[in-house]
Protein backbone atom coordinates (compact mmCIF):
# COMPACT_ATOMS: atom_id res chain seq x y z
CA UNK A 1 0.00 0.00 0.00
CA UNK A 2 1.28 3.43 -0.95
CA UNK A 3 1.59 6.29 1.48
CA UNK A 4 -1.69 8.20 1.91
CA UNK A 5 -1.92 11.59 0.25
CA UNK A 6 -4.13 12.96 3.02
CA UNK A 7 -4.48 11.89 6.61
CA UNK A 8 -7.02 13.52 8.89
CA UNK A 9 -6.73 12.66 12.54
CA UNK A 10 -9.38 13.43 15.16
CA UNK A 11 -10.25 16.83 13.69
CA UNK A 12 -12.54 19.05 15.72
CA UNK A 13 -13.97 22.38 14.64
CA UNK A 14 -16.05 24.76 16.72
CA UNK A 15 -17.45 28.17 16.02
CA UNK A 16 -17.88 29.67 19.48
CA UNK A 17 -20.07 27.22 21.36
CA UNK A 18 -21.18 25.46 18.21
CA UNK A 19 -19.30 22.20 17.71
CA UNK A 20 -19.46 21.33 14.02
CA UNK A 21 -16.81 18.61 13.80
CA UNK A 22 -16.45 16.28 16.76
CA UNK A 23 -13.45 14.16 15.93
CA UNK A 24 -13.24 13.21 12.28
CA UNK A 25 -10.57 10.85 11.03
CA UNK A 26 -10.17 9.99 7.38
CA UNK A 27 -7.35 8.75 5.19
CA UNK A 28 -7.25 9.26 1.44
CA UNK A 29 -4.96 7.35 -0.90
CA UNK A 30 -3.46 8.88 -4.06
CA UNK A 31 -5.87 8.76 -7.02
CA UNK A 32 -8.73 7.85 -4.75
CA UNK A 33 -12.17 9.41 -5.22
CA UNK A 34 -14.02 9.84 -1.96
CA UNK A 35 -17.64 10.99 -1.95
CA UNK A 36 -18.83 12.57 1.28
CA UNK A 37 -22.54 12.34 1.96
CA UNK A 38 -24.67 13.28 4.92
CA UNK A 39 -27.56 15.50 5.96
CA UNK A 40 -27.08 19.25 5.93
CA UNK A 41 -25.27 20.47 9.01
CA UNK A 42 -23.37 17.21 9.34
CA UNK A 43 -20.06 19.02 8.85
CA UNK A 44 -19.11 17.91 5.31
CA UNK A 45 -18.37 21.39 3.98
CA UNK A 46 -16.66 22.36 7.21
CA UNK A 47 -14.39 19.35 6.84
CA UNK A 48 -13.38 20.50 3.35
CA UNK A 49 -12.65 23.98 4.69
CA UNK A 50 -10.53 22.47 7.42
CA UNK A 51 -8.55 20.44 4.90
CA UNK A 52 -7.49 23.50 2.90
CA UNK A 53 -7.17 25.59 6.06
CA UNK A 54 -9.77 28.17 5.00
CA UNK A 55 -11.02 27.54 8.53
CA UNK A 56 -8.30 25.61 10.34
CA UNK A 57 -9.36 22.89 12.79
CA UNK A 58 -9.62 23.83 16.45
CA UNK A 59 -8.17 20.45 17.40
CA UNK A 60 -6.64 17.49 15.62
CA UNK A 61 -4.11 17.16 12.84
CA UNK A 62 -4.06 16.94 9.07
CA UNK A 63 -1.18 15.61 6.99
CA UNK A 64 -0.95 16.45 3.32
CA UNK A 65 1.59 14.09 1.83
CA UNK A 66 4.42 14.23 4.36
CA UNK A 67 3.61 17.57 5.87
CA UNK A 68 1.60 18.25 9.01
CA UNK A 69 -0.32 21.25 7.63
CA UNK A 70 -1.91 21.98 11.00
CA UNK A 71 1.47 22.49 12.67
CA UNK A 72 2.16 26.05 13.83
CA UNK A 73 4.24 28.14 11.44
CA UNK A 74 3.07 26.35 8.30
CA UNK A 75 2.76 28.63 5.28
CA UNK A 76 -0.95 28.22 4.64
CA UNK A 77 -0.88 29.96 1.26
CA UNK A 78 1.65 27.38 0.07
CA UNK A 79 -0.50 24.52 1.34
CA UNK A 80 -3.56 25.84 -0.49
CA UNK A 81 -1.66 25.92 -3.76
CA UNK A 82 -1.49 22.13 -3.58
CA UNK A 83 -5.22 21.78 -2.85
CA UNK A 84 -7.73 22.70 -5.54
CA UNK A 85 -11.18 23.76 -4.38
CA UNK A 86 -14.45 24.02 -6.25
CA UNK A 87 -17.38 25.76 -4.62
CA UNK A 88 -21.12 25.31 -4.75
CA UNK A 89 -21.55 28.94 -5.80
CA UNK A 90 -18.66 28.80 -8.33
CA UNK A 91 -17.11 32.02 -6.95
CA UNK A 92 -15.61 32.96 -10.29
CA UNK A 93 -13.87 36.33 -10.22
CA UNK A 94 -16.54 38.63 -11.60
CA UNK A 95 -14.19 41.16 -13.18
CA UNK A 96 -12.19 38.62 -15.17
CA UNK A 97 -13.03 36.64 -18.29
CA UNK A 98 -13.01 32.85 -18.19
CA UNK A 99 -9.42 32.97 -19.41
CA UNK A 100 -8.54 35.65 -16.84
CA UNK A 101 -10.00 33.51 -14.08
CA UNK A 102 -7.80 30.59 -15.01
CA UNK A 103 -4.73 32.79 -15.60
CA UNK A 104 -4.70 34.80 -12.42
CA UNK A 105 -3.46 32.07 -10.12
CA UNK A 106 -0.69 31.34 -12.60
CA UNK A 107 0.50 34.93 -12.87
CA UNK A 108 -0.05 36.09 -9.28
CA UNK A 109 0.67 32.97 -7.28
CA UNK A 110 2.89 30.85 -9.50
CA UNK A 111 4.51 34.04 -10.89
CA UNK A 112 4.37 32.75 -14.42
CA UNK A 113 4.91 35.06 -17.38
CA UNK A 114 1.74 36.24 -19.14
CA UNK A 115 2.30 34.35 -22.42
CA UNK A 116 3.11 31.15 -20.65
CA UNK A 117 0.14 31.54 -18.33
CA UNK A 118 -2.19 32.24 -21.24
CA UNK A 119 -1.14 29.07 -23.05
CA UNK A 120 -1.54 26.94 -19.96
CA UNK A 121 -4.89 28.54 -19.11
CA UNK A 122 -6.15 27.85 -22.63
CA UNK A 123 -5.07 24.25 -22.23
CA UNK A 124 -7.03 23.97 -18.98
CA UNK A 125 -10.09 25.53 -20.59
CA UNK A 126 -9.84 23.00 -23.40
CA UNK A 127 -9.72 20.24 -20.83
CA UNK A 128 -13.13 21.31 -19.54
CA UNK A 129 -14.39 21.95 -23.08
CA UNK A 130 -14.64 25.73 -22.86
CA UNK A 131 -11.84 27.06 -25.05
CA UNK A 132 -14.49 28.79 -27.18
CA UNK A 133 -15.76 30.70 -24.13
CA UNK A 134 -12.34 32.00 -23.08
CA UNK A 135 -13.25 35.66 -23.54
CA UNK A 136 -16.66 35.55 -21.90
CA UNK A 137 -17.22 37.10 -18.50
CA UNK A 138 -18.80 34.93 -15.79
CA UNK A 139 -22.11 36.80 -16.12
CA UNK A 140 -22.23 35.67 -19.77
CA UNK A 141 -21.81 31.97 -18.96
CA UNK A 142 -24.37 29.37 -17.90
CA UNK A 143 -24.12 27.82 -14.45
CA UNK A 144 -22.61 24.64 -15.80
CA UNK A 145 -20.04 26.59 -17.80
CA UNK A 146 -19.17 28.69 -14.77
CA UNK A 147 -18.53 25.59 -12.72
CA UNK A 148 -16.35 24.09 -15.46
CA UNK A 149 -14.30 27.31 -15.58
CA UNK A 150 -13.99 27.09 -11.79
CA UNK A 151 -12.66 23.55 -12.17
CA UNK A 152 -10.18 24.72 -14.81
CA UNK A 153 -9.09 27.53 -12.49
CA UNK A 154 -8.41 25.05 -9.70
CA UNK A 155 -6.62 22.67 -12.08
CA UNK A 156 -4.34 25.44 -13.34
CA UNK A 157 -2.50 25.39 -10.02
CA UNK A 158 -1.61 21.76 -10.62
CA UNK A 159 -3.15 20.60 -7.33
CA UNK A 160 -2.28 17.30 -5.73
CA UNK A 161 -5.82 16.86 -4.51
CA UNK A 162 -9.15 18.44 -5.44
CA UNK A 163 -12.00 19.28 -3.09
CA UNK A 164 -15.50 19.71 -4.47
CA UNK A 165 -18.07 21.34 -2.20
CA UNK A 166 -21.48 20.41 -3.62
CA UNK A 167 -20.37 21.34 -7.13
CA UNK A 168 -23.73 20.71 -8.76
CA UNK A 169 -26.17 21.80 -6.05
CA UNK A 170 -26.61 25.32 -7.41
CA UNK A 171 -27.18 24.10 -10.96
CA UNK A 172 -30.38 23.47 -12.84
CA UNK A 173 -30.79 19.70 -13.23
CA UNK A 174 -30.10 19.75 -16.96
CA UNK A 175 -26.72 21.41 -16.35
CA UNK A 176 -25.34 18.99 -13.76
CA UNK A 177 -24.39 16.40 -16.39
CA UNK A 178 -21.68 18.49 -18.05
CA UNK A 179 -20.01 19.23 -14.71
CA UNK A 180 -20.18 15.62 -13.53
CA UNK A 181 -18.73 14.49 -16.87
CA UNK A 182 -15.72 16.77 -16.37
CA UNK A 183 -15.27 15.44 -12.84
CA UNK A 184 -15.53 11.86 -14.04
CA UNK A 185 -12.88 12.55 -16.67
CA UNK A 186 -10.61 14.03 -13.99
CA UNK A 187 -11.08 10.95 -11.83
CA UNK A 188 -10.21 8.68 -14.73
CA UNK A 189 -7.03 10.69 -15.28
CA UNK A 190 -6.02 9.81 -11.74
CA UNK A 191 -6.84 12.97 -9.81
CA UNK A 192 -7.33 12.49 -6.08
CA UNK A 193 -10.72 13.93 -5.20
CA UNK A 194 -12.94 14.49 -2.19
CA UNK A 195 -16.45 15.31 -3.33
CA UNK A 196 -19.30 16.50 -1.17
CA UNK A 197 -22.29 15.58 -3.27
CA UNK A 198 -25.63 13.86 -3.25
CA UNK A 199 -25.31 12.75 -6.85
CA UNK A 200 -25.92 9.04 -6.35
CA UNK A 201 -25.16 8.16 -9.95
CA UNK A 202 -21.78 9.86 -9.74
CA UNK A 203 -21.01 8.20 -6.41
CA UNK A 204 -21.91 4.75 -7.76
CA UNK A 205 -19.87 5.11 -10.95
CA UNK A 206 -16.88 7.16 -9.91
CA UNK A 207 -16.34 6.91 -6.16
CA UNK A 208 -13.89 4.45 -4.70
CA UNK A 209 -15.36 5.08 -1.31
CA UNK A 210 -18.47 6.67 0.13
CA UNK A 211 -18.22 8.31 3.53
CA UNK A 212 -21.37 9.02 5.49
CA UNK A 213 -21.17 11.85 8.01
CA UNK A 214 -23.70 12.92 10.56
CA UNK A 215 -23.56 15.23 13.56
CA UNK A 216 -19.90 16.07 13.02
CA UNK A 217 -18.58 12.52 12.92
CA UNK A 218 -18.01 9.84 10.30
CA UNK A 219 -20.73 7.27 10.89
CA UNK A 220 -19.73 4.78 8.27
CA UNK A 221 -17.65 4.38 5.15
CA UNK A 222 -17.14 1.81 2.45
CA UNK A 223 -17.13 1.12 -1.28
CA UNK A 224 -20.25 2.48 -2.99
CA UNK A 225 -21.73 -0.90 -3.86
CA UNK A 226 -21.63 -1.95 -0.18
CA UNK A 227 -22.84 1.39 1.13
CA UNK A 228 -25.82 1.56 -1.19
CA UNK A 229 -26.79 -2.08 -0.79
CA UNK A 230 -26.02 -2.96 2.79
CA UNK A 231 -24.98 -0.07 4.98
CA UNK A 232 -24.56 -1.23 8.57
CA UNK A 233 -26.17 1.69 10.31
CA UNK A 234 -29.86 2.33 10.04
CA UNK A 235 -29.18 6.12 9.84
CA UNK A 236 -26.97 5.61 6.78
CA UNK A 237 -29.56 3.42 5.10
CA UNK A 238 -32.34 5.90 5.82
CA UNK A 239 -30.32 8.81 4.47
CA UNK A 240 -29.23 7.02 1.32
CA UNK A 241 -32.85 5.95 0.71
CA UNK A 242 -33.91 9.56 0.99
CA UNK A 243 -31.43 10.93 -1.54
CA UNK A 244 -32.10 8.03 -3.87
CA UNK A 245 -35.80 8.81 -3.63
CA UNK A 246 -35.13 12.50 -4.26
CA UNK A 247 -33.29 11.60 -7.41
CA UNK A 248 -36.21 9.69 -8.85
CA UNK A 249 -38.79 12.18 -7.65
CA UNK A 250 -40.21 14.37 -10.41
Amino acid sequence: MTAPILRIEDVHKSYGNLQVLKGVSLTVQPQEVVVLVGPSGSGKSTLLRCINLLSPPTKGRIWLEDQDITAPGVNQDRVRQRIGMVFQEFNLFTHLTALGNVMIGLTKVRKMRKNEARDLAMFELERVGLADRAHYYPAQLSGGQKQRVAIARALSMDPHIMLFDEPTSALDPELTGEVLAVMQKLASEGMTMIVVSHEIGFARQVADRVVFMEGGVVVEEGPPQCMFKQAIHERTRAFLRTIEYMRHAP
Partner: protein
Amino acid sequence: MNDVIDLLRKVTPDLLQGTVVTLQITAVSLTLGMIVGLPVGVGRVYGPGWVRRILGAYVTLFQGTPLLIQLFMAYYGLPDIGITLGRLQAAFLTLGLNSAAYQAEYLRSALQSVSEGQMIAARALGMSKWQAIWSIILPQAVRLALPSWSNEAIAMLKYTSVVFLIAVPDLMGQAKILSSRYFAPIQIYLIVAVFYIVLVGITYLILTWIERRVRIPGLTSGTE
Protein backbone atom coordinates in the same frame (compact mmCIF):
# COMPACT_ATOMS: atom_id res chain seq x y z
CA MET B 1 -28.37 93.13 -24.08
CA ASN B 2 -25.38 95.11 -25.27
CA ASP B 3 -24.57 95.80 -21.64
CA VAL B 4 -24.37 92.11 -20.92
CA ILE B 5 -22.13 91.44 -23.93
CA ASP B 6 -19.97 94.37 -22.96
CA LEU B 7 -19.66 93.05 -19.39
CA LEU B 8 -18.95 89.52 -20.62
CA ARG B 9 -16.15 90.83 -22.79
CA LYS B 10 -14.60 92.62 -19.84
CA VAL B 11 -14.85 89.82 -17.25
CA THR B 12 -14.22 86.71 -19.34
CA PRO B 13 -10.40 86.83 -19.30
CA ASP B 14 -10.31 87.04 -15.49
CA LEU B 15 -12.98 84.38 -15.14
CA LEU B 16 -11.01 82.07 -17.41
CA GLN B 17 -7.98 82.56 -15.18
CA GLY B 18 -10.20 81.72 -12.22
CA THR B 19 -11.45 78.64 -14.05
CA VAL B 20 -7.89 77.40 -14.43
CA VAL B 21 -7.34 77.80 -10.69
CA THR B 22 -10.64 76.05 -9.90
CA LEU B 23 -9.77 73.14 -12.17
CA GLN B 24 -6.31 72.95 -10.69
CA ILE B 25 -7.61 72.81 -7.12
CA THR B 26 -10.23 70.25 -8.11
CA ALA B 27 -7.70 68.01 -9.84
CA VAL B 28 -5.10 68.19 -7.09
CA SER B 29 -7.68 67.65 -4.33
CA LEU B 30 -9.27 64.68 -6.05
CA THR B 31 -5.87 63.13 -6.73
CA LEU B 32 -4.66 63.68 -3.19
CA GLY B 33 -8.03 62.40 -1.99
CA MET B 34 -7.55 59.25 -4.05
CA ILE B 35 -3.99 58.65 -2.88
CA VAL B 36 -5.03 59.01 0.75
CA GLY B 37 -8.57 57.66 0.40
CA LEU B 38 -7.62 54.34 -1.16
CA PRO B 39 -5.52 53.04 1.74
CA VAL B 40 -7.95 54.57 4.24
CA GLY B 41 -10.89 52.76 2.63
CA VAL B 42 -9.01 49.46 2.44
CA GLY B 43 -7.73 49.86 6.00
CA ARG B 44 -11.25 50.59 7.25
CA VAL B 45 -12.37 47.19 5.98
CA TYR B 46 -9.34 44.92 6.19
CA GLY B 47 -7.06 46.55 8.76
CA PRO B 48 -6.64 45.36 12.34
CA GLY B 49 -9.03 46.77 14.95
CA TRP B 50 -6.87 49.66 16.08
CA VAL B 51 -6.22 50.79 12.49
CA ARG B 52 -9.94 50.68 11.75
CA ARG B 53 -10.66 52.83 14.80
CA ILE B 54 -8.06 55.47 13.95
CA LEU B 55 -9.20 55.68 10.33
CA GLY B 56 -12.81 55.81 11.48
CA ALA B 57 -11.96 58.79 13.67
CA TYR B 58 -10.27 60.51 10.73
CA VAL B 59 -13.31 60.00 8.52
CA THR B 60 -15.69 61.20 11.23
CA LEU B 61 -13.59 64.30 11.85
CA PHE B 62 -13.61 65.35 8.19
CA GLN B 63 -17.16 64.34 7.44
CA GLY B 64 -18.54 65.74 10.68
CA THR B 65 -17.18 69.28 10.56
CA PRO B 66 -17.82 72.09 8.07
CA LEU B 67 -15.34 72.29 5.23
CA LEU B 68 -14.94 76.01 5.88
CA ILE B 69 -13.77 75.42 9.45
CA GLN B 70 -11.28 72.84 8.19
CA LEU B 71 -9.98 75.36 5.69
CA PHE B 72 -9.63 78.12 8.31
CA MET B 73 -7.85 75.71 10.65
CA ALA B 74 -5.38 74.78 7.92
CA TYR B 75 -4.72 78.36 6.86
CA TYR B 76 -5.06 80.38 10.08
CA GLY B 77 -4.73 77.69 12.74
CA LEU B 78 -1.70 75.64 11.68
CA PRO B 79 0.72 78.62 11.88
CA ASP B 80 0.09 78.59 15.65
CA ILE B 81 1.80 75.21 15.85
CA GLY B 82 4.55 76.30 13.49
CA ILE B 83 3.18 75.07 10.19
CA THR B 84 2.61 77.87 7.74
CA LEU B 85 0.98 77.05 4.45
CA GLY B 86 0.48 79.14 1.37
CA ARG B 87 -3.11 79.84 0.29
CA LEU B 88 -3.07 77.24 -2.45
CA GLN B 89 -1.28 74.72 -0.26
CA ALA B 90 -3.91 75.15 2.44
CA ALA B 91 -6.62 74.69 -0.17
CA PHE B 92 -5.03 71.54 -1.60
CA LEU B 93 -4.46 70.04 1.84
CA THR B 94 -7.92 70.76 3.22
CA LEU B 95 -9.92 69.77 0.17
CA GLY B 96 -7.65 66.78 -0.46
CA LEU B 97 -7.98 65.37 3.05
CA ASN B 98 -11.68 66.15 3.07
CA SER B 99 -12.18 64.38 -0.23
CA ALA B 100 -10.09 61.45 0.99
CA ALA B 101 -12.57 60.90 3.82
CA TYR B 102 -15.48 60.76 1.39
CA GLN B 103 -13.65 58.67 -1.18
CA ALA B 104 -12.62 56.23 1.53
CA GLU B 105 -16.26 55.81 2.53
CA TYR B 106 -17.39 55.17 -1.04
CA LEU B 107 -14.63 52.63 -1.44
CA ARG B 108 -15.47 51.03 1.91
CA SER B 109 -19.07 50.39 0.99
CA ALA B 110 -18.00 49.09 -2.42
CA LEU B 111 -15.45 46.74 -0.82
CA GLN B 112 -18.12 45.45 1.51
CA SER B 113 -20.51 44.78 -1.36
CA VAL B 114 -18.04 42.47 -3.12
CA SER B 115 -19.28 39.01 -2.22
CA GLU B 116 -17.38 37.07 0.40
CA GLY B 117 -16.95 34.15 -1.98
CA GLN B 118 -14.47 36.21 -4.02
CA MET B 119 -12.04 36.41 -1.12
CA ILE B 120 -12.53 32.75 -0.24
CA ALA B 121 -11.89 31.64 -3.82
CA ALA B 122 -8.78 33.82 -4.03
CA ARG B 123 -7.40 32.41 -0.79
CA ALA B 124 -8.22 28.88 -1.95
CA LEU B 125 -6.01 29.49 -5.00
CA GLY B 126 -3.13 30.22 -2.68
CA MET B 127 -3.19 34.01 -2.71
CA SER B 128 -2.30 35.85 0.48
CA LYS B 129 -4.93 38.13 1.98
CA TRP B 130 -3.30 41.27 0.56
CA GLN B 131 -2.73 39.70 -2.83
CA ALA B 132 -6.44 38.82 -2.92
CA ILE B 133 -7.42 42.36 -1.92
CA TRP B 134 -5.18 43.91 -4.54
CA SER B 135 -5.84 41.57 -7.47
CA ILE B 136 -9.40 40.43 -6.88
CA ILE B 137 -11.35 42.64 -4.49
CA LEU B 138 -10.09 46.14 -5.36
CA PRO B 139 -10.56 45.92 -9.15
CA GLN B 140 -14.19 45.04 -8.51
CA ALA B 141 -14.72 47.55 -5.71
CA VAL B 142 -13.26 50.43 -7.71
CA ARG B 143 -15.71 49.76 -10.52
CA LEU B 144 -18.59 49.56 -8.06
CA ALA B 145 -17.50 52.82 -6.42
CA LEU B 146 -17.18 54.70 -9.71
CA PRO B 147 -20.71 56.18 -9.82
CA SER B 148 -20.41 57.63 -6.30
CA TRP B 149 -16.86 58.70 -7.07
CA SER B 150 -18.23 60.66 -10.05
CA ASN B 151 -20.64 62.44 -7.74
CA GLU B 152 -17.71 63.27 -5.47
CA ALA B 153 -15.75 64.72 -8.39
CA ILE B 154 -18.65 66.93 -9.41
CA ALA B 155 -19.31 68.02 -5.83
CA MET B 156 -15.63 68.82 -5.41
CA LEU B 157 -15.71 71.10 -8.44
CA LYS B 158 -18.24 73.25 -6.59
CA TYR B 159 -16.85 72.82 -3.06
CA THR B 160 -13.61 74.40 -4.22
CA SER B 161 -15.48 77.72 -4.22
CA VAL B 162 -14.94 78.03 -0.46
CA VAL B 163 -11.28 78.82 -1.08
CA PHE B 164 -12.14 82.40 -2.08
CA LEU B 165 -12.55 82.98 1.68
CA ILE B 166 -8.80 82.66 2.12
CA ALA B 167 -8.34 84.87 -0.95
CA VAL B 168 -7.43 82.23 -3.49
CA PRO B 169 -8.26 83.72 -6.92
CA ASP B 170 -10.40 80.82 -8.15
CA LEU B 171 -13.56 81.27 -10.19
CA MET B 172 -15.48 82.39 -7.13
CA GLY B 173 -12.61 84.61 -5.97
CA GLN B 174 -12.58 86.34 -9.36
CA ALA B 175 -16.34 86.76 -9.17
CA LYS B 176 -16.02 88.59 -5.89
CA ILE B 177 -13.29 90.89 -7.19
CA LEU B 178 -15.11 91.59 -10.46
CA SER B 179 -18.47 92.22 -8.87
CA SER B 180 -17.07 95.00 -6.74
CA ARG B 181 -15.03 96.36 -9.64
CA TYR B 182 -18.04 96.65 -11.98
CA PHE B 183 -20.78 97.12 -9.38
CA ALA B 184 -22.76 94.31 -11.01
CA PRO B 185 -22.80 91.42 -8.54
CA ILE B 186 -26.00 89.77 -9.76
CA GLN B 187 -24.95 89.69 -13.40
CA ILE B 188 -21.46 88.49 -12.58
CA TYR B 189 -22.56 85.76 -10.18
CA LEU B 190 -25.02 84.58 -12.83
CA ILE B 191 -22.23 84.44 -15.40
CA VAL B 192 -20.07 82.52 -12.91
CA ALA B 193 -22.93 80.10 -12.26
CA VAL B 194 -23.01 79.42 -15.99
CA PHE B 195 -19.25 78.81 -15.94
CA TYR B 196 -19.71 76.26 -13.14
CA ILE B 197 -22.55 74.47 -14.84
CA VAL B 198 -20.57 74.16 -18.06
CA LEU B 199 -17.60 72.74 -16.11
CA VAL B 200 -19.87 70.30 -14.30
CA GLY B 201 -21.47 69.27 -17.59
CA ILE B 202 -18.12 68.56 -19.23
CA THR B 203 -16.89 66.66 -16.17
CA TYR B 204 -20.08 64.62 -16.13
CA LEU B 205 -19.66 63.66 -19.78
CA ILE B 206 -16.03 62.61 -19.26
CA LEU B 207 -16.88 60.51 -16.20
CA THR B 208 -19.81 58.82 -17.91
CA TRP B 209 -17.52 57.96 -20.78
CA ILE B 210 -14.98 56.45 -18.38
CA GLU B 211 -17.70 54.48 -16.58
CA ARG B 212 -18.80 53.02 -19.88
CA ARG B 213 -15.22 52.18 -20.86
CA VAL B 214 -14.46 50.14 -17.74
CA ARG B 215 -17.86 48.48 -17.42
CA ILE B 216 -17.83 44.71 -17.12
CA PRO B 217 -20.92 42.54 -17.61
CA GLY B 218 -22.34 41.45 -14.28
CA LEU B 219 -20.35 43.99 -12.29
CA THR B 220 -22.50 47.03 -11.63
CA SER B 221 -23.86 48.62 -8.52
CA GLY B 222 -27.58 48.97 -8.19
CA THR B 223 -30.13 47.39 -10.47
CA GLU B 224 -28.94 46.84 -13.98
